[in-house]
């Protein structure tokens, strides 16, 4: 029972990441009609926002090391800690949450630039062309990040206050040995909040209403006199923000490295396809479902029965869904069914 709870939490946690990324992907596909293979790169950029913020906050200066009296030794101390001995370390410690605040405008800007500069010209072209050009863009972004940050994973730390584990066993009534890292719980709550905010935005604002109408029938919206093209940039920016936030929050869990975009890209496409391309609820649902499935498949008992199942279960589910019900769990009937 303990293991079960842990696996469910693990699955929900991973599922939160998948759901957030898939949400952005299906938003671009449903509204803009663009298949964006650079979405994984946006996730990676979000993660590297955290890395960059950390480097910014820990710009160091040489300070005399008092503990070594033998000779004059200097150690590197972040300027913030040196100038502000009380509040400096706190700021450095909270670099990930601060990065979250700054990720939103940064990702909005990046999404705006991407849409204006590139994606806009590919609305009329075939899906294959969109895939190819965004694939090229993903490679370019990946290489730029690798040039500036190096090829090694750069671990980021959660703030000290949440760096430990929560005693969830005692909350639920199980044994006290069942613990789960605080940050992962926060991540789960946070991803649910972002998903909720996106849905609220789409449902309760006029802008969101226009976007939803555009997802249903773009031509009709144009005929009603609404210039939906102008809203595309903002939608793309929103999708980029979703991916970026998923990335920046994920850094304490998985050390960011330049290749993580491509790894998550395949998974996010699988999630979108299982949920139904163009269906927002489907993407979220499929994200959580596949996260939990993958978690259960990596339990040792399950692996004993069918070895290697944890690696391939997601792809098997994708193949099954694509063959049996191509519109996905919650896709609209007739969308992209051949």
């Amino acid at each position, binding site marked *: 029972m303990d293991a079960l709870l842990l696996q469910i939490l693990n699955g929900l946690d991973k599922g939160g990441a998948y759901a957030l990324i898939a949400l952005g992907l299906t938003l671009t596909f449903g509204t803009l009609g663009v298949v964006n293979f650079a979405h994984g790169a946006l996730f990676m950029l979000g993660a590297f926002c955290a890395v960059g913020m950390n480097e910014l906050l820990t710009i160091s200066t040489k300070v005399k090391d008092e503990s070594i009296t033998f000779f004059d030794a200097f150690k590197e101390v972040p300027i913030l800690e040196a100038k502000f001995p009380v509040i400096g370390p706190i700021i450095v410690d909270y670099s990930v949450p601060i990065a979250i605040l700054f990720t939103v405008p940064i990702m909005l800007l990046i999404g705006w630039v991407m849409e204006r500069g590139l994606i806009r010209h590919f609305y009329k072209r075939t899906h294959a062309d969109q895939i190819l050009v965004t694939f090229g863009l993903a490679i370019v972004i990946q290489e730029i990040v690798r040039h500036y940050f190096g090829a090694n994973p750069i671990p980021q730390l959660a703030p000290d206050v949440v760096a430990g584990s929560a005693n969830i066993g005692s909350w639920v009534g199980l044994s006290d040995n069942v613990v789960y890292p605080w940050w992962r719980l926060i991540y789960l709550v946070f991803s649910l909040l972002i998903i909720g905010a996106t849905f609220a935005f789409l449902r309760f604002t006029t802008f969101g209403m226009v976007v939803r109408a555009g997802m249903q029938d773009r031509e009709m919206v144009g005929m009603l006199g609404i210039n939906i093209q102008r809203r595309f940039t903002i939608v793309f920016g929103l999708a980029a923000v979703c991916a970026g936030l998923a990335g920046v929050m994920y850094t304490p869990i998985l050390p960011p490295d330049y290749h993580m975009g491509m790894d998550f890209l395949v998974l996010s496409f699988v999630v979108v396809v299982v949920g139904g391309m163009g269906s927002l609820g489907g993407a979220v649902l499929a994200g959580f479902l596949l996260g939990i499935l993958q978690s259960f498949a990596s339990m040792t008992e399950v692996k004993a029965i069918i070895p290697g199942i944890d690696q*391939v279960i997601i792809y098997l589910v994708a193949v099954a869904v694509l063959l049996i019900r191509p519109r996905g769990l919650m896709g609209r009937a007739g969308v992209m069914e051949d």
Partner: protein
Amino acid sequence: MNASTLSRSATSDWVLLALFSAAVLTMPIWLAPFGANYPDLMQKFAIFGVFAIGFNILFGLTGYLSFGHAAFLGVGSYTAVWSFKLLSMNVLPAILFSVVLSGLFACVIGFISLRRSGIYFSILTLAFAQMSYKLAYSVLTPITNGESGLQLSLNDARVLDAAVGIEVTRSLPTPNLFGLELRDEAAFYFCAVVLILAFFIALRIFRSPFGMMLRAIKSNQTRMAYTGFNTRPYLIWAFVISGMFAGLAGSLMAVTDPLAGAERMQWTASGEVVLMTILGGAGTLIGPVIGAALIKYFENILSAFNAGALNRAFEALPDSIQPFVVDTVGLFVGDGWHLTLGLVFMLVVIFLPGGIMEGVRRIGGMFRREDRASVPNRSTAPGAAIDSAG
């Protein structure tokens, strides 16, 4: 149909084949100024040329974008190495079994994937490629030896060799063609011959009614169905053929270097062959080979331009701007060659979707003004959709 396809005849095809063979077989000579005439690189040109030709038969002719061909490359490699271990160091059984096995594998995957089209097909092949890769690393390690890769060893069975009476040597044997050891130059010529054969097969497919059907599928598959043609067998055959080419390329990789690793099966390796085909020109005959050669050239030569070589190259510049120039150019060469590749690829897809061959055709078109009155306007001709198929 553009002028070149109308005026083709059997003679012009043979001329093309002869020219191509001559160019490939004399590669050690004319590649010398580019610094690319060492056997390892030329073998890679040939191997990835075969891979790209096969992929082009699927993507260039039918328009179906598959991200799963790296799996067939991997299957070909592993089969070849297992043939080296179990049967004989002779390359012919290895290649034969590789092609057959990857063809079977492609049949299974193609049968499932081709039930959908467009982006769903791409994602299906992507899923299968990732599945094969993950399985090769985890569950199938008895067959694939996981991360360490499959290697030859001295006490391999090599049944056929023992039956014929070839004795076990002290060091690891090299693949041979009935006794002719395939190292360096010999291996390159072997790969070159295979490339020429592959080109010949692709040429015949392009000019055959089968190739015509594939092009028709690309232009409008629904209409094909309405006129009574069952498109599925053609698609499956195209997929299997391209899978067999991929397996052939994989076996050649094992012939030149008897080591098979699972990293060849990652979907990003499939992305590499997509890059090669698009860069050269999808749907053309020579385009994929050119694309493959260019990308492999970039990979090996451009990535060797480290800071030292750059400094030497720009020695003539005044000292004030030399570091600046070296730094800027250094972003795009050496370790940053992937960046150059990505940028070039994006530029090609945005501005020149037909690849290098389209560029060549456009430049040739600028010089061929006399026929403008007689050739109908291309963009409105009904065959414009098929036009890009070359």
